[in-house]
């Protein structure tokens, strides 16, 4: 049943990966004859530590913030009171916004001469959120967009089975904190892990938000890859492909680690 879907997906993914790998190894040069070489990787090596470090930091901070906010929102939604419905509506509204629209809005809101800076009359005292040294605007945009995604996934996992357990625990005299610790957290852990992994891999490989709201140096991996890809020298394409391969390898590493974690969660089995 799933064969056609898997075939389509693997055609796209494997085709893209193979092309990038072949380009990064010098097998598809724009000029000259193909030859197998690691030159592109050694050329980008000096810039890699800073780029990987920055990308990991942005992705980790965004994932942690999105998971905490998303999980909290999910708990509110599962309660099913009117405020839960409001939170659910807001989360559902957030999802269809394209990231680039969100990023542009965050930019207009948080930049030095942006809306908040003007409303508060902060002027020169306004903190450097957009293009600043801590990438706050980038992380804020990812946290806001992705927390809605986490909230909806976790709510979906909780809503079907949490009520019975929750009521049982309440009847047995468990307080609110203990119910969260012993019922809601274990029940939502698999969904939370999966959605956090998706958020991490997505933010790690995403380009437009970091480009719009970030600064020119240091650069996250995807921003660097696209800059090098568009560079006017003919030798730069293999280097861009090498950066893309590094991004892919790190993302795969994150996904593998997440699956190792999932295997240890009793509910997942």
């Amino acid at each position, binding site marked *: 049943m799933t064969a056609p879907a898997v075939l389509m997906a693997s055609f796209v993914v*494997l*085709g893209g990966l*193979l*092309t990038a790998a*072949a380009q990064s190894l010098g*097998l*598809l040069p*724009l*000029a000259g004859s*193909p030859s197998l070489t690691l030159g592109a990787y050694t050329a980008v090596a000096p810039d890699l530590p800073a780029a990987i470090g920055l990308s990991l930091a942005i992705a980790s901070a965004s994932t942690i913030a999105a998971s905490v906010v998303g999980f909290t929102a999910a708990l509110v939604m599962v309660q099913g009171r009117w405020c839960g419905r409001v939170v659910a509506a807001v989360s559902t509204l957030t999802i269809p916004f394209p990231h680039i629209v969100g990023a542009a809005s965050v930019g207009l809101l948080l930049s*030095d*001469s942006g809306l908040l800076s003007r409303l508060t009359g902060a002027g020169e005292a306004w903190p*450097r959120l957009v*293009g*600043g*040294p801590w990438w706050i605007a980038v992380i804020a945009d990812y946290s806001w967009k992705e927390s809605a995604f986490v909230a909806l996934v976790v709510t979906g996992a909780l809503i079907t089975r949490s009520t019975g357990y929750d009521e049982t625990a309440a009847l047995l005299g468990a307080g609110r904190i203990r119910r969260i610790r012993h019922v809601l957290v274990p029940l939502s852990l698999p969904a939370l892990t999966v959605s956090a992994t998706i958020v991490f891999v997505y933010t790690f490989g995403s380009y437009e938000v970091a*480009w719009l709201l*970030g*600064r*020119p*140096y*240091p650069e996250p991996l995807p921003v660097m890859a696209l*800059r090098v*890809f*568009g*560079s*006017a*020298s*003919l030798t730069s*394409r293999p280097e861009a492909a090498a950066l893309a391969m590094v991004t892919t390898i790190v993302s795969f590493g994150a996904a593998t680690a997440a699956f190792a974690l999932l295997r240890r969660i009793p509910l997942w089995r």
Partner: protein
Amino acid sequence: MTFTLRARNMLTGAAAIAVAALALAGCAAPPAAQTDFTGWDQVTAAAQGQTVRLWMYGGDEQANSYVDNTLTPAAAKEGVTLQRVPVADTKDALNRVLTEVQAGTREGGVDLVWVNGDNFGTGKQAGAWWCGWTPMLPNMKLTAPSDPLLANDFGTPVEGCEAPWSKAQFSFAYNSATVTDPPKTLAGLLDWARTHPGRFTYPAPPDFTGSVFTRQVLYSVSGGYTNVPLGFDRASFDRLTPALFDTLTGLAPSLWREGKTYPKTSGELNALFAGGQVDFTMTYGPATLTKLVADGTYPAATKVLTLDEGTVGNASFLAIPSTSGHQAGAMVVANLALSPEQQAAKADPRVWGQFPVLDPAALSAPQRAMFDALPPSPVVPAYDVLSKSANPELSAAWVPELDEAWRRQILTGR
């Protein structure tokens, strides 16, 4: 049993990967398509009903509206459907063409590109452009063959691989309400920046505008453009650039945000200028200033800074990719864009205000009158004032070298 199954699967996988890699490696670049037109009549006949996709930088509202509302209807009268494809950077269009060249496409998605400089030079090296077609355009006779801006594009010989479209002059604009003592030279401008900390910055190369700013500073610190060889060679680069990067490193602490970061694009610099955070902006298209002041985006007191030593000038062109299947239609559009009517419409500051590429001496009296009738701009001086002692562009090979060195020494050094 399981072992053999797994081994067989692995073998199949390895074989598939090997086949795919071979297939990919087999896509060698084809020779550029040879289309033989014997005369212009044949071209116009072949162009009937063709759709021409013009890929161009989409960040200039006036450029977009000129193409959509003036050039496209005129092309429709010639029987060609013109479609504008906006890109964030001309490099995106070049990348698309290079990918098509790699794949051996004959009916590519790009028929015409607004291009110049290193993008043109890189594309020419890779065989991305169709060449030798511009002499066929009837309106090429209205340009001056001796014009250095049209014969070489950033040092790359044009050789009929692109048709001229507009001339441009790199210009600085400043807010005369806050800058009461406008500098007269580039060295003076840098001094002004030092004495007014935080009120000046420039976009980070490889942004087009930031990149030309660094070349302008290179001319200044080398004692004028005559001291910088236009062709690239490593020895000159190593001899001339230390002074440039020392100057820019010394300037950095006086820049916006102490030079710890830079605007990523000219658009970001323009936003800083519009928001009153800096007192200068710079642009390769000063024509747009008129409208930006008129609609209140820029301060009413915005003026163009004219420098004693002149600034860098260049021309921009329309090139036809070698992968295009609509060369006849693209030639008709390029010829139309060169017509006196279109050049005059484009030069109107209310429309786009781009400087024409035609030679006044080659025009008839009524054609010249069209240009003389254009209204002067309250902000931008006339082209002959702006382009006085225009500096030539360095060859395209300088551009990535300077951009990369700037990244290494200025951006990562702090």
